[in-house]
């Protein structure tokens, strides 16, 4: 009876232990343990030192260790931007002095450590190797797209011979990550510059567009050049607006947004003269044209204009990083004889919203 009870106890314990092993994967023969990878620089497409550390599981002599830089645990293909061509073994621990690096397969993302004499290892012996001057992969080349980071992978295989008889293997995922960047530049444009179907007839500065003394019934064109450089993974939008109106010194005097028939920012049209019959109501117009064909409804808008108003309108857009696209924003201004004499002014505000 006592023996039966003891058997019951051991049976339950064993079953529970087995259950535990299913839920919590313990090291078994063939799997390296405590595998880590750390990078001195985690930025994409940048030279970095990669330090890989792991513990031996299967005791025995090892003659070769392969390290494979891949995209994921299930995809050992080398990420296109990652480069091992300049890699050197700059440090190690746990290896004797007979190990050397073989980079004959660096183009496949593989570095080999070879020891012709072999080195004996015990279970839980720790090996750490540092490779210098590895160029990290680019973002989106491993497992993660449209993010400011990516997760890449290194597989490790140990051999008891020169690469045929695998002993243990391991895999570690590491992250590369870029700091956000953003540079937005507004520049003036000289008179006489061709911009998307127009030729400017005034010169501007980054902070000033002065149309000067307007000739009635003549259209004036002045432009600014916009430039965006950013690594925002999901791109950006630049919008422009007038803060209020182009307002005269007398508050009632104003120049309206371009309002030709059917004109809107989503439907730019050719320039027309203001046709209002009452002063300050469509007797003067300010419109704008963007040369950025990525902006919706502006992919074929040469010499066309939309209203320039206190509503923000997209003037540059991208759905991915930008290495420095430039676009012209051209303003057109015309008044009829019914526009009251006055000095008009307003503030153009640009905003840029990158999405990382």
């Amino acid at each position, binding site marked *: 009876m*006592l023996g039966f009870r003891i058997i019951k106890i051991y049976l339950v314990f064993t079953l529970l232990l087995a259950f535990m092993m299913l839920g*919590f994967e313990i090291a078994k023969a063939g799997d390296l343990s405590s595998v880590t990878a750390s990078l001195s620089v985690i930025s994409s497409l940048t030279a970095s030192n990669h330090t890989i550390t792991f513990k031996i599981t299967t005791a025995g002599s090892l003659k070769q260790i392969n390290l494979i830089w891949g995209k994921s645990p299930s995809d050992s293909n080398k990420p296109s931007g990652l480069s091992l061509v300049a890699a050197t073994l700059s440090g190690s621990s746990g290896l004797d002095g007979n190990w050397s690096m073989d980079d004959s397969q660096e183009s496949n993302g593989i570095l080999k450590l070879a020891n012709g004499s072999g080195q004996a290892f015990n279970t839980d012996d720790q090996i750490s190797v540092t490779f210098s001057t590895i160029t990290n992969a680019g973002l989106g080349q491993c497992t993660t797209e449209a993010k400011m980071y990516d997760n890449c992978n290194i597989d490790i295989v140990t051999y008891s011979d020169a690469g045929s008889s695998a002993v243990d293997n391991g895999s570690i995922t590491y992250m590369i990550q870029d700091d*956000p960047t953003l540079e937005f*530049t507004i520049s003036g444009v000289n008179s006489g510059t061709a911009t998307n179907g127009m030729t400017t007839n005034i010169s501007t500065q980054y*902070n000033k567009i002065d149309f000067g003394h307007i000739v009635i019934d003549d259209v004036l064109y002045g432009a600014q050049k916009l430039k965006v450089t950013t690594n925002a993974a999901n791109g950006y939008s630049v919008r422009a607006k007038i803060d209020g109106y182009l307002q005269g010194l007398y508050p009632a005097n104003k120049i309206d947004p371009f309002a030709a028939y059917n004109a809107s920012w989503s439907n730019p049209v050719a320039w027309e003269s203001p046709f209002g019959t009452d002063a300050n109501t469509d007797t003067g117009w300010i419109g704008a044209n963007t040369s950025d064909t990525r902006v919706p409804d502006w992919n074929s808008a040469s010499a066309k204009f939309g209203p320039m108003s206190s509503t923000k309108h997209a003037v540059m857009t991208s759905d991915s990083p930008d290495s420095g696209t430039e676009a012209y924003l051209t303003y057109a201004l015309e008044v009829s004889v019914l*526009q009251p004499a*006055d*000095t008009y002014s307003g503030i153009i505000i640009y905003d840029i919203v990158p999405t*990382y």
Partner: protein
Amino acid sequence: MTKLFKKVTALTIALVMTFMFFTPAKAAMLYNAKVTLSNPKASDSSNYTFNMKVKTAGTVKGIKMAWLKAPSGSTQNPTTFDVSGGSLNASLTGIDGVWTLDHTDDGTDISYITKGAGTVLAGDTTIGWQLDGATNPSISGTSAGCSPNATNNSAGTCFIKITTFNTDTLSDLQDETPANIIDKTVIGFAVVSGTTMSATVDPTLSFTVTAVNSGTDVNDAGATVNASITSTFDTMAFGNLTVGSPKTAGHSLFVKTNANNGYTVTIRATTDAANANGVLKGQYAGNNIDGFGGDSEWTTPIAWASPTSTTANVVSGQVGVNSHDTDTVFNGGTAALWAPLQNASARPIMISAGPDLGTSATLITVAIEVNVYQPADVYTGTFQYNATPTY
């Protein structure tokens, strides 16, 4: 033995449960992250609207925002940024309930929003919140503001480091205790200088007098009175007058102006005639032809009538004026009536309360008639129009 069995079983189950269900959390990156400024003008007041997706599932109890000059390598904040007067907008996305904005570290441009009970978030959930009433940084290469671009001071770039926590304890948020961090990211934003746009519309005035041909209907009151002669812009040569037969001539006047308060065109004789009412003078001194009627006719014009005077050179001949501009005294029932051409006074014959495109003419008619007492002579005179805009 049974007690021992129970203890062993319980201990084993406990160990199994521990290893099966305990997975140490690893901080990941917030993504699709952006901040939108309601007013991106440097040094102006603005709201900051944050929007992003969480990567790691968990209960978020605190969110930390740190405004920085650089995305990494430095904790320098743009010192001209000020969120001390800011408040948390009630509109939240993905994070429910009442969150509180903590101003403890405003001096180093660090803000926290916390909620004791937190919000349980699944991975890839979109969250958003808005801070109202912050003051934007300036554009500056110093620690004061956002670093300008490489070309000019049109825009400056700063960064915000955002971290989500599983605690609302301020000290843990301040220390960024690793075990409390759920996700994090750093995003960039720009402030701009603004562009001043200006234009000057000068006052404009264009006044044109054009001829009217003989035979043109110069009276718009129904009864046709055709011009007797063809004028030029600077002459009305009536030729030989027949006693008792009036003659008429016309001018078309155009005014193009942006005078917001309109304009007035007046007519006035400038002849140095023998008497005060004379508007045409003869070659012989003392001979003159007077204006038709007197001052009262410029209040209430009258119908044309032949001169009745029997005294030579005293209203034995007369010159009258009519205008088609109904904004003058010639409107309604007086549209076809007449008032005297005068030396003494400039009389309005064209009026506008506002600007004029200059595309519509105003017809001015001048009529002349003499009776038998008007001495034979060759009579000449001058009159002028005067256009006066009010801007």
